């Protein structure tokens, strides 16, 4: 079964064009043309990924993003014409995983979608320790003691990338390549915002992070497991 992609954009021509491209890539498009109906369509269609325009009539794209994120960890990619504004950061903070600046090429769009849909098909029975957390890679679960911490797939991938090489300091660029699938220069704000979101979920005290540690001037590193 081909993955289903919900396209939320008020521009019918663009939506249709995106639909054509998605179909040619063996993806199944579902459409919603305004912010008000987006959540309904999302619930009824159960997509594997959402393409979300930031500027929408009715409810703003950022708000839609927050609504979807509130009930699902499904990957969300924002479409934006204003890549350099704070809108992008607001969208990322509202829970979007990635963004694509208009105008984009079909290949770029498909690459972004594929990177987000990518699943670790091979069964991994790995158990990773990061800070005082246990990451069950196969079960896609993160636990602190008995408590299960809910992470979106992207946040989970970020955790796994850091936890697999606890000795390595990851620069933002390296994380962008490993987690987001960017090969060339990209916006390091993606990393900053998602590290913040991740910390808000996994850190005991987000002001003094122990799971995702900042290495000043370089990047991030996994926190050491507590010594027993």
């Amino acid at each position, binding site marked *: 079964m081909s993955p289903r992609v919900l396209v939320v954009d008020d521009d019918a021509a663009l939506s249709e*064009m995106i639909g054509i491209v998605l179909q040619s890539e063996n993806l199944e498009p579902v459409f919603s043309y305004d912010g008000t109906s987006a959540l309904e369509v999302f619930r009824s269609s159960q997509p594997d990924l959402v393409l979300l325009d930031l500027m929408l009539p009715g409810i703003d794209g950022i708000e839609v993003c927050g609504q979807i994120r509130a009930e699902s960890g499904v990957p969300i990619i924002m479409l934006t014409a204003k890549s350099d504004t704070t809108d992008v950061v607001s969208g990322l903070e509202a829970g979007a995983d990635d963004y694509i600046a208009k*105008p984009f*090429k079909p290949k770029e769009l498909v690459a972004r979608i594929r990177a987000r849909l990518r699943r670790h098909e091979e069964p991994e029975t790995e158990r990773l320790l990061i800070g005082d957390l246990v990451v069950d890679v196969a079960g896609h679960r993160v636990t602190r003691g008995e408590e299960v911490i809910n992470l979106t797939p992207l946040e989970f991938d970020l955790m796994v990338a850091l936890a697999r090489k606890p000795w390595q300091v990851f620069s933002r660029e390296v994380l962008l390549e490993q987690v987001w699938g960017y090969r060339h220069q990209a916006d390091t704000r993606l990393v900053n915002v998602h590290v913040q979101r991740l910390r808000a979920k996994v850190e005991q005290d987000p002001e003094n992070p122990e799971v995702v540690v900042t290495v000043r001037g370089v990047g991030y590193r996994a926190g050491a497991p507590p010594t027993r």
Partner: protein
Amino acid sequence: MADRRVPPPWQDRLRRRALLAWRRTRVRLRVLARAWQRSLRVRVSVTTVAVGLVALLTLGAALSGQVRDSLYDARVDEVLTDAAVRAEQAQSAFDNSNAARSQDVVVLGYDVLNSLATTAGAASVLLLRPPGQGTQFPELASDNNQRALITAELREAVRGGDRQMWQAVAIKTGDGEVPGIAAGTMVTLPLVGASELYFVYSLSEEQATLDLLQRVLLVGALALVLLLLVMTWYLTKQVLTPVQQAANTAGRLADGLLDERMTVRGVDELAVLARSFNEMAQSIQDQIERLAHLSQMQQRFVSDVSHELRTPLTTIRMASEVLNASRDDFGPIEARSAELLATQLDRFESLLADLLEISRFDAGAATLEVEETNMVVAVERVIDIVEPLAEQRGSPVARTLPEVPVRVDMDTRRVERVLRNLLVNAVEHGEGKPIEVTMAANARAVSVVVRDHGIGMTPAAAARVFDRFWRADPARTRTLGGTGLGLAISLEDAHLHGGTLEAWGSPGEGAAFRLTLPLRAGLEVREHPLPLVPPREQSDPVEERDPAGPHALPDDFMVEVSE
């Protein structure tokens, strides 16, 4: 052995002390001079007091002079009248006497003198014989101490005329002198004949009056000056406090606190000042707010245009890519059309992006995302990206970069964009000749010079090269697809960092572009670590006669890194 240190000679000690005192005085003078220069209040007060003091002293001097003169004149008149009356009394006493012997005359003289001395207000009375008429008649004086007051000059004048003569004298007293008058006249004594009769009057009372008056004047003057000082100090405070307030308010306004106003009190001139000041501040605030509003509208417009244009462009773009991807299935005409559509859309897109970037600069909406970064890495990265293109054109890229990291507060995206622009530009105009990228830093700034040896340009062209859509040769087409805005954007990027971007060119010799950025945000670039004009090709004939030779590197051609 006992310590027999020789004390420094006293001259030395004195000289040192004098030097010290002079230095101290100089410091004090400087402090005073500074107070004079910096405080209007000190200046006004000192000037007022000085003028007041001079005026009062002049007035006092004139007044006491006037009083002294009139007192003196009145006293002189009184004294002379008295002396004349007494002289007549003495003469009649002498005339009526029937002294027959010279001893009798002496006795008579004494009697008359004594009666005169006791009745008249004179300090003393003297009866003298003209010189050269024998000494059998002694000099008679009621007070011998004052004999010296009668000068030969006066005596001669008295003898010369038959009128009363007088002279101002200074009478010695126990503690100093008092002014006095000596008046003389001729009298005729029986038997002895013509003699000189002198009266000496003291003016001590008048002097005391005058002294008292002067003391009162002085005290009054001092009190007045003091009052003047206090008044000026207070008045200047009254005037200067609002002025000071205006200055403070203006300072705060300049700092951007546009709501700052002066307090208006009363209806006087200072209130007018405050009111006018506030009106000015209000007007400035209105203007600034209007401009800010305009700029905001401009920004919103730019962002709206961006969105409105980009959405259809995305659709066109995707359609074109889909068509272009399957152009193998088309006929040659359709295939070429699809290809042209795709490439020209690329161009259209970069043009749109550059236009939006420029309008963002114009709207003042461009923001710098500064991070301390090793600029050497950025330069190398850009060279690595452009190098394949340069090699394709046959231009090797030579790098002369510092071996140590140069940490610069910069927006990497913008700086790399500038460098990429400069390098692509060099490749475009380099005609396959070598390109040199040189980088150096000093304590405050870092420079990157990109040099090509291509067609070059005239100085006039170098001056216009940053203009939007400007082309040195309109007939030449852009082979690398530049938009004509690249250098204009690069210049804005450099300025946004507080840095500079300059161009040099010489036809046939190539061109050089120098980007200089301050190492720390906000630092002022004073000296460029690298020269813009290459030393070998210097067109200035004066420089060619440089004894170091035309191949010498300038002094600042070195790497200085403070870290």
